[in-house]
């Protein structure tokens, strides 16, 4: 039992106008399963694959950022449009603003560096470690990538092992393979 959609919609409008929706959430279908998308007023803050428990993901964000989380699909329209075009092979570079609040200093550096790996190419964990000034930190880089809160848009799938092995992926290897194959055209 809940209230009419129009009543909820008016509530969302006023809440948004008053700057009270700290995190907007929605989900979208994609070729690699349903994606849970979250954005703050500053930008895209979290993407979760469907095998992550939705309530747990929301609970973590509630604790780490703010419990003022509401379903507000329109804030995520730009993200959804870019992802749709990306999955259709018609978008190479994401332009939506990113909110890095869920990442620590080192992980943020690693992920920013990762975001500069061009579409369709790959880099090794060691390459990224060098790129962030810790040449011997390949393992730490791997950990930072594994905790990427914004997979796909921050393309940690483009980081592989030296010598061509595919390496790990927080969203599971089949997704990493699928994304690399998409970008290979």
């Amino acid at each position: 039992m809940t209230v009419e959609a129009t009543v909820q919609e008016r509530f969302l409008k006023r809440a948004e106008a008053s700057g009270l929706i700290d995190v907007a959430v929605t989900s979208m279908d994609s070729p690699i399963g349903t994606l849970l998308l979250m954005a703050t007023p500053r930008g895209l803050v979290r993407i979760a694959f469907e095998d992550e428990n939705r309530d747990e993901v929301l609970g973590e964000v509630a604790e780490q950022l703010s419990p003022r989380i509401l379903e507000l699909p329109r804030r995520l329209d730009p993200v959804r449009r870019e992802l749709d075009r990306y999955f259709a092979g018609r978008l190479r570079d994401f332009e939506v603003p990113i909110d890095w609040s869920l990442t620590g200093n080192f992980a943020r550096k690693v992920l920013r560096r990762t975001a500069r790996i061009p579409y369709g190419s790959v880099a090794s964990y060691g390459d990224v470690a060098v790129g962030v000034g810790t040449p011997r930190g390949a393992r730490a880089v791997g950990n930072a990538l594994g905790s990427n809160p914004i997979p796909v848009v921050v393309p940690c799938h483009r980081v592989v092992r030296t010598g061509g092995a595919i390496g790990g992926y927080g969203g599971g290897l089949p997704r990493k393979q699928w994304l690399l194959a998409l970008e290979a055209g």
Partner: protein
Amino acid sequence: MKPTALPPFQLVFDAHAAAVLAFLTGAVGSVEAEDCFQETMLSALRAYPRLGDASNLRGWLFTIARRKAIDAHRARARRPAPVADPDPGATLDEHAQVDDGLWDQVRSLPLKQRKAVVLRFAGDRSYPDIAAAMSTTQDSARQSVHEGLKKLRKELR
């Protein structure tokens, strides 16, 4: 002990919005209920991150809703009276048509009885729910409703 973590507000809204709106419809009438509801939910959302304890979110929302209903009654009292009030004609059974005069009486009940009566008839809550919301036993919740109704019958006679 770590306090219960605050769930995403969307879950709070989904779980309790209908009951809050029903309560407000009873308390201020259907015309003003939605305004009060929006004010209640916005106040709640504004204060939510500072709420220390998530163990009784429904009770917390109803507390805010009750304040908003009282504000609405005060605002109405300052406005000129309408030409004709709807005929009260209230009988108090579970299916009674509520009217504002009745709710004025309800508001004058002692706190425990008032809470119990409002939760039972405006919120349409079950006795286990009411007991939980009031941190008391079901028997005691029934007792409060019973006594509240008895008092109302006497006063409305």
